[in-house]
C-alpha cells in the first residue's frame, strides 16, 4: 500500500512544481542547463515512444475487434502478431511511469506489465459469466496481474482457439479479452494525454530539487533499470539471489510466447542505453543526456575492480555495457531454456546488469547530485 501513497506524493509534487513554476525549486550546484536534457528526453524520446506505443495499442484494439467478432486462425494470428508488436513498443515507454490519476492504486507499468499472470484468478474469472466479467474492477492493485500484456499473452497464446469458438464459455473468454484490451487502451490514453498536456511544463522545470522534473525522471529511470529491467526480466526468473535455487521459468516475461523473451529484453536494453546517451527514439539523433551532463562536470575517473585500473566515465560505461553485451549474446532467444538448462548464464547476466545499476547509483548519482527517492529492493 505504500506505493499508493508514494504515487500520489510523486504526482502532487510534480504538479506543484510545474504549476508554481520554479518558485519552490532550488538552484543546482552546477551551471549545467538541465532543461537541455529534459527537452531531448521529452521531445525526442518520450513523446515519440508514446506515439509509437499508442499506435500499436490502436492496432491491438482493431485486431481484438476483428477476432472477437469472428474468431478464427486468421484473426487470432493477426491479434497475436499485434500483441507482440505492442509488447516490443511497450519496452520503450515502460521506464516513464507517470501519468495515471492521483487516486490510482498502482502505476501504469504495474497495471500494464505485471508478470507472471495470475492464471488461477484469471481462470476463475473465465469460469463465471459475461455479467460477472463486466463488474470485475481492474482498478484494484490486487488485480494488476489479471490484466495487461501478460494476461493477454496468456489469453491468446496459452489458451486454445476453441475456447473462443466452440467452448461453452466462449462468450466469457471473448468478454475477458475485450475487457483486457479496453483497459490497455484507456490506461494508455490517460498516460499519453498526461505527457502531451504536461510536456511543456516538464521540459521547462530545470531545477535540481528532489521534486524537479529531472530528478523525478532520473529516479524513474533508475527504478526501472533495477525493477523492470534487472529484477523482472532476469533476476526473478533465474532466482539470482538464491544462487538459482528459486528459479522458475514461469517468471520469464511473455511466458506463453517465451520464444520472444530475448527480443523484448533487447528492446528494453536499447531503451535503457538510449536514455543514458540521449539517443532519440528513432535512433537518428544523439542529444543531451546523462552522458553529456557528466562530461560537462568532468568528474574523477572510476576504478574497475576486475582490471584494477581507473577509467573515464565514458570508457567505464563502455566497459560495463560491453560486459552486458557479451553476456546477453550467450542467452537463448527463449529465456525459459536458459533458466532450465543454462541458468548460470542468466545469473551472470544479472551480475553484469547489477554492475551498471551500481555505476548509476554510486558514480552517476554522486556526480550529478541526484537524491534517490526510493528505497532499494533486494529482490523480494
Amino acid at each position, binding site marked *: 500500500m505504500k*506505493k499508493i501513497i508514494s504515487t500520489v506524493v510523486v504526482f502532487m509534487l510534480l504538479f506543484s512544481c510545474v504549476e508554481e513554476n520554479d518558485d519552490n525549486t532550488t538552484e543546482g550546484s552546477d551551471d549545467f542547463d538541465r532543461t537541455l536534457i529534459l527537452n531531448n528526453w521529452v521531445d525526442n524520446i518520450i513523446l515519440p515512444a508514446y506515439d509509437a506505443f499508442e499506435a500499436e495499442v490502436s492496432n491491438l484494439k482493431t485486431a481484438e475487434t476483428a477476432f472477437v467478432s469472428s474468431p478464427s486462425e486468421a484473426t487470432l494470428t493477426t491479434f497475436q502478431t499485434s500483441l507482440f508488436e505492442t509488447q516490443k513498443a511497450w519496452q520503450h515507454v515502460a521506464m516513464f511511469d507517470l501519468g495515471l490519476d492521483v487516486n490510482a492504486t498502482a*502505476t501504469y507499468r504495474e497495471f500494464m506489465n505485471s508478470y507472471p499472470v495470475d492464471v488461477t484468478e484469471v481462470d476463475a474469472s473465465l469460469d463465471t459469466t459475461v455479467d460477472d466479467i463486466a463488474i470485475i474492477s481492474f482498478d484494484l492493485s490486487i488485480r494488476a496481474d489479471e490484466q495487461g500484456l501478460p494476461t493477454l499473452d496468456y489469453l491468446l497464446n496459452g489458451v486454445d482457439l476453441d475456447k473462443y469458438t466452440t467452448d461453452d464459455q466462449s462468450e466469457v473468454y471473448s468478454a475477458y479479452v475485450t475487457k483486457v484490451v479496453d483497459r490497455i487502451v484507456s490506461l494508455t490514453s490517460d498516460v499519453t494525454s498526461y505527457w502531451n498536456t504536461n510536456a511543456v511544463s516538464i521540459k521547462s522545470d530545470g531545477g535540481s*530539487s528532489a521534486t524537479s522534473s529531472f530528478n523525478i525522471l532520473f529516479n524513474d529511470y533508475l527504478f526501472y533499470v533495477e525493477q523492470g529491467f534487472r529484477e523482472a526480466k532476469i533476476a526473478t526468473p533465474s532466482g539470482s539471489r538464491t544462487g538459482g*535455487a528459486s528459479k522458475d521459468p514461469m517468471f520469464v516475461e511473455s511466458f506463453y510466447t517465451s520464444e520472444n523473451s530475448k527480443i523484448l529484453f533487447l528492446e528494453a536494453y536499447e531503451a535503457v542505453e538510449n536514455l543514458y546517451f540521449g539517443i532519440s527514439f528513432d535512433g537518428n539523433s544523439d542529444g543531451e543526456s546523462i552522458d553529456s551532463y557528466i562530461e560537462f562536470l568532468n568528474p574523477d575517473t572510476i*576504478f574497475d575492480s576486475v582490471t584494477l585500473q581507473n577509467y573515464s566515465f565514458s570508457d567505464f560505461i563502455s566497459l560495463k555495457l560491453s560486459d552486458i553485451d557479451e553476456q546477453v549474446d550467450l542467452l537463448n532467444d527463449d529465456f525459459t531454456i536458459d533458466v532450465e538448462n543454462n541458468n548460470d548464464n542468466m545469473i551472470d547476466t544479472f551480475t553484469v546488469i547489477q554492475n551498471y545499476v*551500481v555505476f548509476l*547509483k554510486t558514480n552517476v548519482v554522486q556526480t550529478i547530485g541526484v537524491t534517490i527517492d*526510493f528505497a532499494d529492493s533486494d*529482490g523480494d
Partner: protein
Amino acid sequence: MNIRKISLVATIFATAIFTSCSDDSDDFNDSVDFAQEFTDIDDSVVTEPATYEFERDGNTTIDFSGQTTRLKQVNEIGALMLSANPVPTQDDFTNRFNQAVSFTDESLNGSKNVRSKTGSSVGLFQSNAADSESIKEDFDSYLTNQIAVLSSTNEASVGVAGTYSDTPRYFNAQGLEYQQAFYKGLIGALAMDQSLNHYFNRLDDNFDGTLSYRTENDAETLATDENYTTMEHHWDEAYGYVYGLDADEDNLIQKYLNDIANQVNFNDIAENVFKAFKIGRAAIVAQEYEVRDEAVEVIRYQISKIPSARAIYYLDDAKTIFEDETTDNRDAFHSLSEAYGFIYSLQFTYNPSTGEPYFAKAEVDAMIAVLEEGDGFYDLSTDDIDDLINQIVSAYDFTLEQALEQ
C-alpha cells in the same frame, strides 16, 4: 513487486535539512583514529606507480608464486568436492590438502600446501596452537564428511544427506553445503589470516620485536639469492593472497572484492584495497613506514568488511525465502551455507581500532552453533537469523540498511 517510494517524503525533508553535510555523507564514521580509505593516507612522500609493478635494477622485485599456488590448490580441492562420479576418496583429499601431492595440475605438487597455512598466522595463533589445530580440523572434516554426502543417493531432507534441486546442491544432514563452508571459510582462515594477521605482522621483523627486516630494508639488504628485501617480499605475499590469481579464477578474497562491488555501500572496497596495497608497497621502497602502516590500516579495515557484509547479505536472502510461504525452505540452504562460511571467517578479521578480530573465535563458534544445533538449517528460525544479523551488524560501523542496499 516491492515499491518503497514512501521514503520519498522522508528523503525530501532529509535533503532539505542536511544539504550542508553532503561532503561527509559517504563515510560511515569519521570519528576514528586510523586510516579507513586510501585517500586518508598521506602519501605525498612516496612515488606511487600506476600499476602494481616494482623493479630494482630493471628486474621485478615482486614474487608471490607461493600464494598463487595455494589459491590454485584451493580451487582444485573445491572442485573435487563436487565430483560425484567418481566420488573422491579420503586419500584424494588428504593428498592434496595436507601433502600437496597428486594434484591433477602437477605444477601444484610440492612443498607448499593449504592446510599448514590454514588458521596459522603469527598474529592470532603463535601462542595458541590448540585453536590453530582445531581450525585445521574443521576443514579436514568438511572434506571427509563430503565423501558421504557425495555418496548418498537420497534427496536431501531433514536428517538425511543428499542432493537437492537439479543444480544439484549437496546438503549434509543439516542442510549445509560443505563446499561453501570450505571456500568461504578459507577466505578468512587462509587468505585473510595470512594477509592481515601473518604477513602484515612480519613486515618489520619476524614478530619478535627485533626490527631486523626494517634494518635490512633501510639498508636495501636483499634476501639471499633474491631481488627483494624481506619486507618487500612479505608485503607481496600479503598482496598475493588477494591478487595471486586472475580475477575470474579466484574463489577467495578477490572474487568477493568484485562481488561486493555490487553492494552500493561497499562499492569502494576494491579500489581502497588495491590502491592501499600499491601505496604501501611504494612506501616500503621509499622507507616511509608511517605511510606503509596507514596502508595496512586501510587494507585491514576494508577487507574485514567483506565477511560481515556478505554474511548479512546471505542471511537476509535466506530469511526472505523462509518468509515466502510458496517456496521450499531448502531453497535458502545455499545462501545459509555461504553465510556459514563467511561467519566462520569473521574470526580472522582485524579491527584497526582494537588490534583484535571483530569477533573472537568463541563468539564465532557460538554463532556457528546456532546454525548447526538440532536439525541445523531445517529448524533454523527467522528469529535466529535476525539475531545473527544483528550481532554481526553491531560489531561494525555500518547499519543493516547500508549493508543490504543494492
